[in-house]
């Protein structure tokens, strides 16, 4: 699948079949994630992949945005201490969010190319998720990506195009 097809075909999937996602597929998605760009090549991201039912149930309790019953969730966390060391104040405040988002997008596009559905989630309590996942203090969850075999593929929402760009200068 070429990149543009993957970009335009990806949807936010919130309904999954019961079929588990093979571990080699999850590792392939992880590989896609770590090939994302990161600020100053910091690579301060850390990933916990949740597939086990008991932990998934607990994670859902503190993640209102984690909808449906996905067989796998990537918890994308950041080492905030390392980020501050590498990126100064801007690291933990801004760069970690950008880096997590770029890793998430790589996961979602790669998953789509593999026939999987995904949804990126910011609606969770980071402290509560960190505690459940036994993360050390400096590791902070920033995003989650649910992964599974889609039960329903939502229609594409309308995209603005003509209204959102200019060449050379805004309103130019």
């Amino acid at each position, binding site marked *: 699948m070429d990149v543009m097809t993957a970009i335009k075909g990806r949807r936010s999937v*919130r309904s999954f079949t019961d079929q588990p996602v093979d571990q080699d597929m999850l590792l392939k998605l992880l590989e896609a994630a770590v090939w994302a760009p990161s600020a100053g090549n910091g690579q301060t991201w850390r990933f916990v992949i949740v597939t086990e039912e008991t932990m998934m*149930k607990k994670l*859902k309790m*503190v993640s*209102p945005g984690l909808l449906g019953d996905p067989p796998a969730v990537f918890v994308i966390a950041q080492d905030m201490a390392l980020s501050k060391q590498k990126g100064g104040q801007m690291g933990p405040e801004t760069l970690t969010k950008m880096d997590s988002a770029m890793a998430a997008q790589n996961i979602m596009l790669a998953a789509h190319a593999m026939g999987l559905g995904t949804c990126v989630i910011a*609606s*969770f*309590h980071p402290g509560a998720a960190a505690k459940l996942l036994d993360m050390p203090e400096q590791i902070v969850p920033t995003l989650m990506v649910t992964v599974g075999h889609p039960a329903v593929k*939502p229609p594409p*929402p309308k995209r603005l195009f003509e209204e959102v760009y200019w060449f050379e200068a805004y309103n130019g």
Partner: protein
Amino acid sequence: MDDKGFEDKIFGLVSYVVVSARNLLEEPARYGPFRLVDTASRLINILDEAGMSSDRLKAVRDKIEAGKYSAMGTEEEFEQFLETTVFFVVDAIDNTGD
């Protein structure tokens, strides 16, 4: 479903509501009504699994499930969904199935 299973499901719902309350302080405004109708749907699911639901409750849940993701669409779509759901509930008020 035994008592422990029922309590476990209710605990999950309580946790969802409590964490939502905290997170909604900073989340988009429309997530609030979304979480409320989603909670209603989840509650009906739990009651259904425990054999304590009813046709009208299941109908309300189905109505919610069919339209709740309009929260991710336009404001008009979501408002329309909520408005029609209100009157769906109103129409079921006296329909106790007795």
